[in-house]
């Protein structure tokens, strides 16, 4: 029996249809423009597929935050753990998630957008895996299933062994509505992966724990680190595992620098990074694709600016990712803010995915390029 905590952010996605690029702090305006709630319909698709699964035990929130949808799909037995009144808010999402955590759920299934993912992550961190049914305006976070049907498959086939790391992204909504995309890596959650879906191919080793894959990548880097080269380490757990293997400190979400087996600087901003790249200093950048779309540059690691990337040299940017992550991201993206630099990456990139092993991945070609 698996215990699933289920919640809906009822207002998620409302801003999108009426051109608001996000609903946070804008519900009234969205309603005025004629927006109707999206999340409930999306969640209904997923829940209808799960409503007869006897191995699942649902706990949820009252009313529009979950109960209504469970009822509508004909589910008989579930428990309402969290009651709220009035318009739901981020505060309600966080409190509900905390109740789920206390109730010992195996997985939190939610329907919402990036904001919802962030609120839940703030409440439960990496203690409970989370999976999103996509319904929001922006979905840069990697905790979302591709669509509601896939979300149902992931819940039904969920096993503790097949979890992957997924970035939770923070998007500045004010700036976004003004046409500027400012993303920050907010945290790294745990999310069910599609491991079981490739059972009929020969890729069975990829179904092992993602930690094993990270260990392999780290072991490879331990072998190929070159003396006197400044290594700029990007964010995320794959790069963190490399740092651990090397025995150096590293922040999970920040950019750090390592040279000759020692940490030089932690959580560096762009200017400090530029200063570290003194004359004649050879450097390499280790980065991992970030977010649902798999951005190599330009999302969540904006400290590595276009001038830094140029100074280090594209040939010295080493992309690493686990096979799990790569399976979720068929195409990678580069958006450094310098379209000339983006174009220099060409149409594919080699991504180190194991011990002495890499994968050739396509890079999305923007229309302007």
């Amino acid at each position: 029996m698996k215990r699933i905590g289920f919640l809906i952010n009822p207002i998620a996605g409302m801003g999108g249809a009426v051109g608001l690029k996000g609903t946070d702090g804008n519900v009234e305006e969205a309603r005025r423009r004629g927006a109707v709630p999206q999340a409930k319909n999306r969640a209904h698709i997923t829940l209808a597929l799960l409503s007869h699964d006897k191995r699942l035990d649902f706990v949820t929130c009252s009313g529009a935050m979950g109960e209504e949808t469970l009822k509508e799909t004909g589910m008989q037995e579930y428990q309402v753990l969290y009651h709220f009144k009035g318009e739901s808010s981020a505060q309600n999402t966080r409190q509900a998630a905390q109740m789920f955590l206390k109730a010992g759920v195996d997985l939190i299934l939610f329907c919402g957008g990036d904001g919802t993912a962030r609120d839940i992550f703030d409440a439960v961190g990496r203690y409970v895996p989370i999976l999103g049914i996509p319904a929001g305006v922006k979905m840069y976070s990697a905790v979302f299933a591709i669509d509601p049907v896939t979300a149902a498959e992931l819940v039904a086939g969920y096993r503790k062994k097949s979890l992957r790391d997924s970035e939770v992204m923070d998007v500045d909504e004010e700036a976004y509505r003004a046409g500027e995309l400012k993303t920050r890596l907010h945290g790294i959650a745990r999310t069910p992966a599609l491991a079981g879906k490739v059972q009929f191919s020969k890729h069975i080793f990829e179904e092992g724990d993602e930690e094993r894959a990270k260990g392999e990548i780290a072991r490879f880097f331990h072998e190929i680190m070159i003396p006197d080269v400044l290594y700029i380490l990007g964010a995320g757990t794959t790069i963190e595992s490399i740092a651990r293997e090397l025995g150096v400190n590293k922040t999970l979400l920040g950019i750090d620098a390592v040279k000759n087996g020692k940490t030089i600087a932690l959580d560096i901003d762009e200017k400090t990074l530029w200063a570290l790249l003194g004359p004649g200093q050879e450097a390499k950048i280790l980065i991992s694709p970030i977010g649902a779309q798999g951005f190599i540059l330009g999302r969540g690691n904006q400290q590595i600016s276009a001038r830094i990337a140029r100074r280090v040299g594209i040939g010295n940017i080493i992309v690493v990712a686990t096979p799990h992550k790569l399976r979720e991201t068929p195409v990678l993206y580069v958006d450094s803010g310098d379209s000339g630099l983006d174009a220099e990456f060409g149409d594919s990139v080699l991504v180190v995915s194991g011990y002495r092993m890499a994968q050739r991945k396509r890079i999305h070609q923007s229309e302007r390029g």
Partner: protein
Amino acid sequence: MQTKILLDEEQMPKKWYNVQADLKSPLDPPLHPKTQKPIGPEDLAAIFPMELIRQEVTTDRHIDIPADVQDVLRLWRPSPLYRAHRLEKFLKTPAKIYYKWEGVSPAGSHKPNTAVPQAYYNMKAGVERIATETGAGQWGSALAFATMLYDLECTIYMVRSSYTQKPYRKSMMHVWGAECIPSPSTKTNAGRAMLEKDPDTPGSLGMAISEAVEDAASHSNTNYALGSVLNHVCLHQTVIGLECREQLAMVDDYPDVVIGCVGGGSNFAGISFPFAGDKLTGKHKDVDIIGAEPASCPTLTKGLFTYDLADEAGYTPLLKMFTLGHDFVPPSMHAGGLRYHGDSPIVSRLVHDGVMRAVAYHQSEVFDAAQTFARTEGIIVAPETSHAVKSAIDEALKCKKTGDAKTILFNCSGHGNFDMSAYDDYYAGKLVDYEYPDELIKEAIARIPIIS
């Protein structure tokens, strides 16, 4: 417009061709893994019958195929040579493309060409049982068939990732009466050690070889058989190229380009050695011989030409060959038969000397080629074979650009009827383009201080 070029049964080769006779200097000898001194016949006698050991080292140009073996080979040989008219038309190439179809054997690939003589010589030497390894299952099923013919028992260590994913190859082995065990297993010291190190390992050809060699060495009634790499295996496969040369002569042709896919090297050796001999002896100096390998296990294009172990555990002699290192575990891609860290010492030597060359391809592009082939010529080839198809198409497209009407010959080494899950993955967009990151490795090797 002739499509199939067929030889009569009596035109089947009576002798194998040994390219060692035409090498400018002898091969570097195999070395004992412990003493690092050249090994002698007695070192191999525990696991091979003497006639195969003789064939391994001989420099005689021709070796008779025993009449009993010829009788069995006639079940499917001589195999047909096809002119790929429909593929040529589709590609709009001036090139003439021929392919040798080895998928007509009972096991569906070229592998029985050596499985049969190996089983025969073991039977003659009084051996009762043979242990071997198999990657994708092609070799295992071929040896299961051959040992059945001569009443030998057969134990096959099958790379675990294939064992679970290729159930029908395993079923074939059972039909022919062989025992098939997933490797690494708990039956051998080598297998147990590997499982202890890594219980979730997908296995590798190198690991499975260690298990089979240990099994053979520790049972007096048991010998070992290898489906590729070794000189005598390549020798037995030369029937392919010898037939091709006769068949092309029947239509008054000779290849400008000869292509095979390369894992351990045996099917490539089979089609190419007779032509490599023509090149070495100056009869046809310009024939271009190409081995097509996977970018994920690019032994000939990215490996080092050096002495290395042929297996994981270190039971086999050290062979001078192109290698990615015996501890390299290639990723579990679909062309399981090409997942080998090393290569045939003769093929390696010929590539090193420039008599042959190699190219490497990604998984998805070889399946593109395989689809083109299936939709023009009809045959659904094995993922391994698709590498040769891809190379042949590339060469034909080059001809389209230059206007050269070259004659291209490739070995269509086996059918893919048991590999349909690979095609399913291709259509589902699930194929992963693995690639060996050789730049990173080479830069590091070049600059990391060597610690003695």
